[in-house]
């Protein structure tokens, strides 16, 4: 690893939460606009996080503190692995470790809200992880490698070969963004049933750490999306912008559904789309 890569990694680790926060702010503004409201300032997510960092440290047990930090470290590490153009499967495993630790932290407290939220978060992970692996396998079929450097070296946009698998990836993005109809584990609007679900027992600086780690995760998934049009910068930006605007639109027009619906619907549609896309690829190669 040379000095240039190290600088790239550091720049990405600094820029990612800034971009993630701005995206979250833009998201809240657009959602408010959809609902006929004025909405908070674009910088609102940063105000929230800095306020949380300045609050009292209050934790139910030490496990929570440990788990919050591991989640942040795993998210940062997976983004760093992406920047050094490592292996997609490795990135996926590191990201999963972080997500699992977040759930373990929530499970370590006796609060029923936290417990239910943690169970739902586990089901969400169960839903999107097979799909992510299928997407990576699809990318492997086209480019012949799991390594990001090889995927970037492929001369055509892989979106043209894997349009349906891109749709499958957006399912995972929707779940990871905690957006409707899949916002069942930590919803802003489900106070009565789960308070804040998996985030209920994290408070103050630890909640801020989770928020920052969440921004890293969002940026990582968007970066994986950007691989689908890696040949031109404009194409990449267009693809990401359309994807994110579609996410906001879907968030605003769909209600929150149950975990059973999520599991059956996402697996049924996701696996069917993936099979269809794979069949198309095979048909092309003959």
């Amino acid at each position, binding site marked *: 690893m040379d000095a240039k890569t190290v600088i790239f990694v550091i720049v990405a680790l600094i820029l990612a939460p800034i971009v993630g926060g701005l995206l979250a702010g833009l998201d809240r503004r657009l959602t408010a606009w959809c609902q006929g409201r004025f909405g*908070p300032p674009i910088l609102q997510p940063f105000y929230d996080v800095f306020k949380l960092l*300045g609050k009292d440290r209050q934790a139910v047990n030490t496990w929570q503190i440990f788990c919050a930090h591991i989640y942040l470290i795993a998210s940062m590490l997976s983004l760093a692995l992406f920047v050094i153009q490592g292996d997609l499967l490795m990135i996926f495993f590191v990201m999963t470790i972080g997500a699992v630790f977040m759930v373990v932290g929530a499970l370590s407290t006796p609060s029923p809200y936290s417990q239910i939220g943690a169970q739902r978060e586990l089901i969400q992970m169960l839903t999107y992880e097979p799909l992510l692996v299928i997407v990576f396998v699809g990318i492997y079929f086209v480019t012949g490698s799991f390594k990001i450097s090889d995927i970037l070296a492929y001369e055509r946009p892989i979106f043209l070969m894997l349009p349906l698998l891109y749709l499958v990836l957006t399912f995972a993005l929707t779940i990871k963004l905690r957006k409707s109809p899949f916002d069942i584990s930590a919803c802003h609007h489900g*106070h009565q049933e789960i*308070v*804040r679900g998996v985030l209920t027992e994290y408070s103050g600086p630890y909640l801020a750490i989770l928020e920052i780690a969440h921004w890293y995760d969002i940026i990582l998934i968007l970066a994986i999306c950007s691989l689908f049009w890696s040949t031109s910068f404009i194409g990449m930006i267009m693809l990401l912008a359309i994807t994110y605007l579609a996410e906001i639109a879907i968030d605003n027009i769909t209600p929150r559904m149950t975990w059973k619906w999520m599991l059956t619907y996402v697996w049924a549609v996701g696996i069917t789309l993936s099979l269809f896309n794979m069949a198309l690829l095979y048909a092309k190669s003959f």
Partner: protein
Amino acid sequence: MGFFKNLVETSRVKSPWIVHFDCGSCNGCDIEVLACLTPLYDVERFGILNIGNPKHADILIVSGTVNYRNAKALRNVYDQMPEPRAVIAIGACGTSGGIFRDAYNVVGGVDKVIPVDVYVPGCPAKPEAIIDGVVLALAKLKERRSTKDTDALAEELHKAREFYANREDRKVVE
């Protein structure tokens, strides 16, 4: 370090998260609190969120009279909120006990159980008045420190001692 402190203080004023506790109110004030979230008033433009979780909240809004049964619950919600925090009592009942103040089961206003920073009168309190109350609470919240700061801690301790010394006046006997 000064820069970070300033940043946190500015952020605290710009992002007050609210938890709303209904202490046996007639729901008149509760509906007015929820009305603040509607597009007409849209308090989210000030960063105010109804968060529904005392562990995440900065401001506790209490409506309704305190009675012997829910005094403990109110105390519990207040104790779960990390510093810095502020309390707003809403409506005639929340501020003093209102028309129910002499009832056999009523302790009185919210300040009989927890220290209150801002009183918003009205029956029910108007949404404009509630937003005004939150803004007043923000001014107080800005001066608060998290308990890491020893001077502020001493001040809080002094307040708590005073509060404890007056406990006979607020005694809750079932």
